[in-house]
């Protein structure tokens, strides 16, 4: 027969969480959060801002917290596969520093809080879009697509592409062509970026049973897809200059860095064996981050510094 002490002692121990504050910050995926805030900020600056800087800052905070919350929900759901992948095994839940239930509660609380505050601070279109973004990433991508189709990151990429549209809705109350183009850039950028990583880490994904394209269709089919997506991405990357919300500096940077993306994607397509193949995939992965950062940084700089010099030919 168990005594009262025996019954309660383990439960009390289990309820104690060894997690540090930093572990809960890690649940928010700070690097992804930075990208979310950065792209959302650009989404705000390229449109006609109808709200005060204070409201815009609060909206940005809500978008950041909402993005972080979806990261926590993703880590809660993916804790089993995170544990078997070298890239993710040290995350707080598989490492045993945060309990799964804590991560779920943390993610849900921040999700609901960020959506409500964004709705109260700005408008309910923006709040609904933020809720949809969180739902899309946590449920559609993490719970459904990621483990069921090699097109997981193509469709799931929409979640990462939505922050500029949420930001646009927050400061204008509607959605414009500018944020739609920014959405398209991030959406088309996601497959070449993640498939380049998947080519390098295909063993990791295979061990975890995640059907990434290289594991399902093979590396060569993945290389072709990377090349095709890059072919579409680069012209879309120039669109802000064509449409007039990117200036001369943006036109130059988007064309030059776009040519860099094309060159690296072509090399990934052509070089298929040995260390050189791995190296070219790694280089494309690294450069793709720089490419996206450059496009958005130049748009931000042009808007913030008033340097948007419209191209004479393109209007």
């Amino acid at each position, binding site marked *: 027969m168990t005594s009262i002490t025996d019954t309660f*002692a383990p439960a009390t121990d289990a309820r*104690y*969480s060894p997690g*540090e*504050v930093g572990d809960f910050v890690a649940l928010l995926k700070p690097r992804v959060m930075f990208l979310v805030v950065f792209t959302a900020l650009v989404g705000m600056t390229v449109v006609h801002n109808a709200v005060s800087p*204070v*409201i815009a800052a*609060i909206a940005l905070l809500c978008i950041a917290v909402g993005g972080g919350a979806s990261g926590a929900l993703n880590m809660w759901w993916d804790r089993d596969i995170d544990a078997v992948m070298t890239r993710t095994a040290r995350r707080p839940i598989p490492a045993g520093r945060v309990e799964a239930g804590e991560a779920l509660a943390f993610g849900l609380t921040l999700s609901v809080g960020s959506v409500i505050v964004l709705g109260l*601070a700005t408008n309910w279109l923006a709040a609904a879009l933020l809720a949809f973004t969180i739902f899309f990433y946590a449920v559609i991508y993490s719970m459904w697509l990621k483990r069921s189709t090699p097109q997981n990151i193509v469709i799931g990429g929409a979640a990462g592409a939505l922050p500029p549209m949420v930001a646009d809705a927050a400061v204008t109350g509607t959605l414009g062509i500018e944020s739609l183009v920014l959405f398209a850039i991030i959406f088309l950028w996601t497959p070449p970026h993640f498939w380049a990583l998947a080519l390098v880490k295909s063993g990791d994904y295979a061990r975890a049973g995640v059907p990434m394209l290289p594991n399902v269709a093979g590396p060569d089919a993945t290389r072709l897809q990377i090349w095709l997506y890059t072919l579409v991405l680069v012209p879309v990357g120039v669109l802000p200059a064509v449409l007039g919300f990117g200036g001369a500096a943006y036109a130059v940077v988007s064309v030059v860095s776009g040519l860099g993306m094309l060159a690296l994607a072509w090399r990934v397509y052509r070089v298929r064996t040995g260390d050189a193949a791995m190296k070219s995939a790694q280089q494309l992965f690294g450069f793709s981050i720089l490419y996206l950062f450059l496009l958005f940084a130049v748009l931000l700089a042009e808007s913030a510094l008033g340097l948007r010099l419209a191209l004479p030919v393109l209007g």
Partner: protein
Amino acid sequence: MADLTPEEQKRRRSRSIAIALALAGLVALFYILTIAKMGPQVLQRAI
């Protein structure tokens, strides 16, 4: 409750401080939001 080691107590304390700071931040956020949305009129009302 089982005795916590000094390290566990330190972690719990830092988590408590973080939660307190987050709550204080929320209070400040709603205060700033109210002033930003309603402007100075928020203070002009019948006593």
